[in-house]
């Protein structure tokens, strides 16, 4: 789309300059500026980027050109973040903005608010492909990222020895962590050779030993400028580093592949220095506070102990220590007395029990029992004896009488009294029991109760039924024996020998 340059003012319509004199350059410039601003409030232009430069202020300058013309473009810092990543000379872009004049140089330029790349730049494609591949390999995994040491003694830096990055890093470290040693492994940070040098620098810092952490980075630039930090070799060197790596490449919004692989990404080299080192002043303050804490803790402790000591000193025990002894002596006495009393009681009770037991025991003693038994028996025997005597006497006497009576009955004299007589054969002298024993003319003597008779056997048997012999009836007499076995003692039987 081309605008025809519409001329609002017919040059001829412009009033002739005043007679007072020529206008100032400023006045002229202002008029031109006003003209352009009114006429070109919004433009949309396509062209190729050339002479791209990023000012330290953050503003970006480039020229937009085609085959026949070019126009200067300015992108304010605030809009620079939204520039295409692969913003580089040769990139074809569309620019939106307004036109104005830069008075100091008398140039007109586009103040671009939006710059859009047409299609994707070659570099952008390469970036995306590599990122995808390395991510798949797991090089960006959060688990791989190591924590940074809290108090690094040696901080390695991989960057250009002359760029702004190294100065920024050193300034921040000087302010925050002056006790740290900075070991710079210098390297180019753009161009074809840069990637190789960066890799070597990282390896050397690992080889040197004693490096606690390293910063790898550079200041801002185009995608092309930053490209070494998107190289696969650099990514792998960072991944392989035993020393933790902080990647600080370009501006805040630039992301390089090294940023993804590193343990920490910092938006700028200065930020990297802040991340890597603690604030020594804060630490010193902390130490002062710690000292105060220790002092307080100890002070409190001593205070408490002192108070306890004073309390002890003031206590009765200290002022009248003898009281302690007295008190205890008293208590001892009391207890001793009670003990004695108890002992006596116990002893007494014991004695009583003992006596009781002894007497019970005595009662139970076998000899005593024996004696007692003997006694009882004796008594029983006596009683028995007495009883026995009486009983026995009665029975015996009765029996005796009876026996005596029977004996009496058997007394031949009593028999004689009853009419019986005893005949004795004179010839033999024996009592005649059988008639057959007497012969005729035998002399017989017969004893009767009141005297004797002499007779002679006639020889005739006077027994009824029998002829012959004598009729004297024999007296079968068995003398009742009046003797009995057993002694009869006048004292009565004794069972025991006393």
């Amino acid at each position, binding site marked *: 789309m081309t605008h025809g340059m519409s001329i609002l003012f017919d040059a001829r319509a412009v009033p002739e300059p005043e007679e007072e004199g020529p206008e100032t350059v400023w006045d002229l410039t202002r008029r031109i500026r006003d003209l352009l601003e009114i006429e070109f409030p919004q433009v949309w232009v396509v062209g190729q980027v050339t002479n791209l430069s990023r000012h330290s202020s953050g503003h970006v300058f480039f020229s937009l050109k085609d085959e026949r013309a070019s126009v200067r473009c300015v992108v304010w810092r605030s809009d620079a973040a939204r520039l295409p990543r692969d913003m580089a000379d040769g990139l074809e872009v569309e620019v939106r903005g307004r036109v104005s004049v830069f008075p100091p140089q008398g140039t007109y330029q586009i103040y671009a608010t939006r710059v859009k790349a047409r299609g994707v730049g070659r570099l952008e494609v390469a970036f995306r492909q590599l990122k995808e591949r390395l991510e798949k390999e797991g090089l960006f995994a959060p688990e791989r990222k190591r924590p940074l040491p809290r108090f690094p003694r040696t901080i390695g830096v991989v960057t250009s*020895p002359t760029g702004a990055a190294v100065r920024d890093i050193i300034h921040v470290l000087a302010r925050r962590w002056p006790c740290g*040693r900075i070991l710079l492994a210098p390297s180019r940070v753009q161009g074809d050779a840069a990637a190789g040098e960066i890799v070597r620098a990282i390896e050397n810092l690992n080889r040197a030993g004693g490096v606690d952490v390293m910063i790898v980075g550079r200041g801002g630039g185009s995608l092309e400028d930053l490209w070494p930090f998107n190289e696969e070799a650099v990514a792998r060197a960072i991944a392989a580093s035993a020393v933790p790596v902080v990647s600080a490449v370009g501006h805040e919004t630039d992301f390089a592949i090294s940023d993804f692989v590193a343990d920490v990404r910092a938006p700028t080299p200065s930020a990297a220095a802040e991340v890597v080192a603690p604030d*020594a002043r804060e630490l010193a303050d902390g*130490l002062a506070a710690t*000292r105060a804490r*220790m002092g307080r*803790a100890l002070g409190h402790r001593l205070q408490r102990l002192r108070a306890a000591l004073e309390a002890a000193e003031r206590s009765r025990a200290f002022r009248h220590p003898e009281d302690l002894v007295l008190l205890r002596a008293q208590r001892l006495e009391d207890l001793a007395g009670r003990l004695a009393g108890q002992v006596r009681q116990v002893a007494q009770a014991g004695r009583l029990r003992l006596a009781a037991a002894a007497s019970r025991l005595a009662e139970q003693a076998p000899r005593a029992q024996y004696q007692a038994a003997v006694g009882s028996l004796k008594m029983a025997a006596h009683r028995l004896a007495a009883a026995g005597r009486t009983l026995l006497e009665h029975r015996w006497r009765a029996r005796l009488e009876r026996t005596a009576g029977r004996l009496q009955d058997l007394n031949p004299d009593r028999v004689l009294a009853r009419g019986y007589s005893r005949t004795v054969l004179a010839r033999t002298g024996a009592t005649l029991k059988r008639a057959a024993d007497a012969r005729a003319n035998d002399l017989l003597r017969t004893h009767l109760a009141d005297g004797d008779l002499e007779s002679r056997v006639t020889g005739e048997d006077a027994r009824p039924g029998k002829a012959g012999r004598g009729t004297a009836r024999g007296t079968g007499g068995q003398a009742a024996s009046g003797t009995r076995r057993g002694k009869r003692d006048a004292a009565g039987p004794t069972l025991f020998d006393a």
Partner: protein
Amino acid sequence: MARKKKAQQAPTFEERLGRLEEIVEQLESGEVGLDASLKLYAEGADLIKACRKDLAVAENRIQALTETAEGDLETQPMEVEDEEA
């Protein structure tokens, strides 16, 4: 042939701070005896002194790490030109 190792390497700043934390905790807990408390306090004071000393360095030591032609590493003190910011 084995070279006797030098007396144990000095504790790092981090180790000192760690021990200091322990000491403060013990002192504040009040469970440590008086003698031990005094000893701990003394140890803590020494540690604080040592840490302060470490922090008190005024300037970073800046060195450049370069490689010789043979591939050996060497460090050299380095001055960084101060450009106007």
